[in-house]
């Protein structure tokens, strides 16, 4: 236990050190940082403008109002943003690190590989998503369409953590294919973009798509399904429970797959 404790401390200290260095580097290129932030912010605003134009034509969409959809939209951004902020370097596994042999560097150090991958980078662009998400959620709360009691607040926090973990797991799973096929970026992109489906109520899709985004690449559990719990009194808290189970299950599978991948890592011909 003592051993575990010091290991944990060491990882924590190191994470702080690495991220601190990274932040320093970002602060040296402030313009880049703000441009990236603005870019993400802006593309989210476009998405909302689209919804706005659509709702000029109809009063509700399958029983959902514009305000409610805005909440779902905003709620979806929070776990996405958290994952984006903390684990963005997973993309580099899929696109570059494995094929260029840069994974060597991680293999040579006496630390957990996944830790090393994510500790390499914080993605400040993610603040754009977190910002849009927070604004939309606060807006929704001020409109009084969100249920607020102690249970809902606690489950809200749990839900966004589980949601972020689902994102991370899906990313890690598809990125790990790179150990076999060198570049798995396109696969990861496909999987990641499935999240777009979950920004809207899943009822609008056919059964196959609904099944796919609920159980196979479970983005529905990141956004629409838990969000509905906070909007409608008749939705049971079980949905958050299932979200957590899915998060843990998917994490275990992805992490095992990642480990399998590192064991067959081929480096690059040199």
């Amino acid at each position, binding site marked *: 236990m003592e051993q575990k404790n010091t290991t944990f401390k060491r990882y924590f200290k190191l994470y702080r050190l690495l991220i601190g260095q990274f932040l320093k580097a970002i602060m040296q290129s402030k313009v880049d940082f703000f441009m990236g932030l603005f*870019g993400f912010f802006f593309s989210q605003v476009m998405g909302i403008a689209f919804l706005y134009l659509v709702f000029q034509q109809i009063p509700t969409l399958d029983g959902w109002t514009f305000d409610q959809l805005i909440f779902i939209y905003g709620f979806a951004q929070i776990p996405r943003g958290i994952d984006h902020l903390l684990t963005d370097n997973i993309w580099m596994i899929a696109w570059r690190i494995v094929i260029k042999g840069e994974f060597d560097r991680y293999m040579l150090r006496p630390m957990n590989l996944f830790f090393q991958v994510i500790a390499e980078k914080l993605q400040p662009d993610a603040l754009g998503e977190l910002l849009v998400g927070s604004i939309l959620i606060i807006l929704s709360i001020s409109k009084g369409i969100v249920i607020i009691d102690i249970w809902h607040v606690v489950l809200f926090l749990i839900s966004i953590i589980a949601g972020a973990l689902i994102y991370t797991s899906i990313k890690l799973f598809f990125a790990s294919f790179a150990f076999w096929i060198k570049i798995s970026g396109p696969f990861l992109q496909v999987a990641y973009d499935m999240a777009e489906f979950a920004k809207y109520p899943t009822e*609008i899709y056919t059964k196959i798509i609904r099944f796919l985004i609920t159980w196979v690449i479970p983005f529905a559990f990141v956004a629409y399904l838990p969000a509905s719990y906070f909007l409608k009194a008749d939705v049971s808290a079980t949905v958050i429970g299932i979200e957590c189970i899915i998060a843990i299950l998917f994490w275990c599978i992805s992490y095992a797959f990642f480990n399998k991948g590192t064991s067959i890592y081929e480096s690059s011909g040199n």
Partner: protein
Amino acid sequence: MRRKLKIYLPFTSNELKRQLSYKGAFYLFMLISLFGSFISYYLWMAIYGNSESGVLGGFSKNEMIIYVFMVYVTSSIVTVSIADWISDDVVMGTVSMNLIKPMDYRISLIFRALGSMLYRFLAPGVFIWIGIEVYKVKVLGMDFPNILSILLFILSCIMSFLIYVLFDFCFGMISFFTTHIFGMLLVKEALLSFLTGQLIPISFFPESLQHVFDYLPFSSMVYTPVMIYLGKYTGETLCYMLLRQCIWVIILYLLGSLIWRKVTKRLIVLGG
């Protein structure tokens, strides 16, 4: 002319080759870009289902289905982002290499973009187009478009391609002045998907905004050819729209030349 083609055509074929070499990416990116269309499709289905009127923004439900997928086909072949290449070239310092070669940098980029366009046209574009046609006739019970409107659509697409690429060239010039182009590319992407009618037909915008759009090149990039294809423009309007595209090609070409002259002057002074 022939000699010129000999210089620039390799850019086209190299780009085609480069794109083909990513076997996995080939099929998958097709799929990704279709996601957006399918989301739009289901969303519109739900929207029409929730609307009392059968016509929204001047589109019937069936027309909207065609619109959603034809916008995908058109934008996938038209919107070749050469600004990305320019910024790569600037970052890698290969622009000055291009300056000392006896050729026009912009034309070489356009020919490269042509390779990308051909690839996207052959790979997903044309098949999805055929798919839409089959769906249209078999399921929706609509008529085949006549040859003339197909030809006009293709003509309009070619101009759209030129408008987009020439515009993007001007946009890419930003990378000579700042290294922070990444964020701007994101903004451009988001803004264009909105203003070109990719996300939602321009007829859904408030009237006043639509009037503003009349004086911008964006609707000529994707919206115009798709509207022509749908047969929404006829007679005088049709001619006017094609003429407008033509004018934008000329304006953006001249603008690009002007900026390029300024930039190269600066490059020579600063030593690239």
